[in-house]
């Protein structure tokens, strides 16, 4: 397990309390699980993602991640429509562990209520939140 200082938490994405990240810089928003989540889960062996076109609300389960320890659900950071899913994860779920923010991204969405982005945390706020639960 990594210590908080050892975690890779990029500045350019936002975070949720359930340890998802979201990149809000493009037209669509890219979502995945962050370094803390993949480290806690252990080696990931299977990722299940939604259908393209699925419309989900903030907090809805959009997929499941199975590791050698347990099966966990992943949640929508904001409401939106699924535009793209990372099909590479079907055959290479380990990308979530080895490259959580690049090759291990999970879905891209078109946010239906961009204001909800304000409920997410930046790196500093997320680090504070992590210190509280560690």
């Amino acid at each position, binding site marked *: 397990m990594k210590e908080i200082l050892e975690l890779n938490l990029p500045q350019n994405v936002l975070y949720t309390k359930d340890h998802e990240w979201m990149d809000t810089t493009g037209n669509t928003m890219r979502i995945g699980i962050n370094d803390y989540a993949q480290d806690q889960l252990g080696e990931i062996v299977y990722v299940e993602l939604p259908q393209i076109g699925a419309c989900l609300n903030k907090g809805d389960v959009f997929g499941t991640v*199975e590791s050698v320890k*347990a099966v966990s659900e992943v949640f929508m950071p904001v409401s939106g429509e699924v535009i793209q899913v990372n099909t590479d994860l079907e055959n290479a779920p380990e990308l979530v562990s080895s490259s959580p923010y690049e090759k291990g991204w999970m879905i891209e969405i078109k946010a239906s209520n961009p204001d909800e982005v304000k409920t997410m945390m930046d790196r500093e706020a997320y680090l504070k939140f992590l210190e509280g639960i560690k």
Partner: protein
Amino acid sequence: MTETSATRGLIFNEPLLWEIGKKGRIGFSMPEHDVPDAPLDKEFIRKDSELPDLSEVNVIRHFTRLSQWNFGIDAGMYPLGSCTMKYNPKVNERVALLPGFAEAHPLLPTSLSQGILRLMFELERCLAAITSMDAVTLQPSAGAQGELCGMLIFRAYHRKKGKPRSKIIVPNTAHGTNPSSATLCGYKPVGISINEKGILTPDAVAALMDEDTAGIMVTNPNTLGFFEENIQKISEIVHSKGGLVYGDGANMNAVMGIVDMAACGMDILHLNLHKTFSTPHGGGGPGAGPVCTKKYLEPFLPVPRIIEEKGVFSLSNDFPDSIGKLHAFYGNVGIMIRALAYILCMGGENLKKASQLAVLNANYIKEKLKKVLHLPYDRTCMHECVFSDKNQNPTKITTLDMAKRLIDFGFHPPTIYFPLIVKGAMMIEPTETESKEEIDRFIAAMEQIVEEATNQPDLLRNAPMKCKVRRLDEAQAARKPCLAG
């Protein structure tokens, strides 16, 4: 600890069956026959199976050698939490192998099956007596199928009352199969958290229970190893809103002859014969998850039911409200024979004593090991106790490393990373069958492992070192399973 029971014996290397096979080798021969040889009809010839060609001795040696790499309850302590891996007394096997039982065919008419029907009827009565419930079905073939049976009864009951409901309350200390079983029946499981003592509170249940909620599924004792002390109050709340209470009895081994499940307010309860009643488990044999209900839910039980009239037993399908059939024929009968043998050999007093010893043993381990391992909920437990790897964080030793190292000491690892509500959980259930000496050896092994975790952590990271195969790549096995040669 100077000497462990684990050592190196003569353990054979063994290739895959596909590497042993040789074209044309065969393990059986046709008897002499008075009809000419004829080839199989084309449509019966499969090309996709690609099985290796093997002789009988190839197969026997292969599996015997593999079995020597294995570890079972007959070889040593198996402290899996939440799964009650207790020793299976051999008298159970002897009884189950009596030809009258072992050779009975499920299509025999009931007039020729009176013995086995009586046995099943009596087992139902025994289970009703042990739980204080009224009616029992033996059909479900595992705990999870028992839960499914219970949820189907929930649905049938509410439908009969004219008000189908949509939700079920499932605590985060329930077995993981509980929400799955509820979902299979079309219910939406609603999670509920425990308090700082590791148990449910009536207030939390009252806040969620409404008239669209079919009821609650409670594992009692729960998966943290604690008795749900508020169960009566919780049942009252659920009943007052017209709901039902389902008891997951997977942890019944802690409370046999001690807790009256009917008085707790349980309407339906499943038992695991392969846990509490010492029948073989997992790869050792099929399971059985009988379901017990209160009298008023009896009409919904699966058919056929076993009926007794003037000492004659028969099977009846005449239950119009029944949820139907759950299993081919009558369930896993061989397991029922073993369970009744166990219950009758033990008797009521000894079953109670078994539970008392199971609880005593778990508390003994908890008190001894809490000096070295982190114990998230420090209070009297039932038949199992849950530690975590928090104390080992500085050297980055995990629960998995400690579990693997335990193999080098000749013990099966405990349940790890469950329940999910404890980070790095290690759940230990010694059961009543281990002697104090054996439990002391286990404790000494754990103490040494904890010490190694601080001073020689690499010993743990590289464990196990003494068994046939070293640490397996579990992730690779799950990602790219190779099931053929």
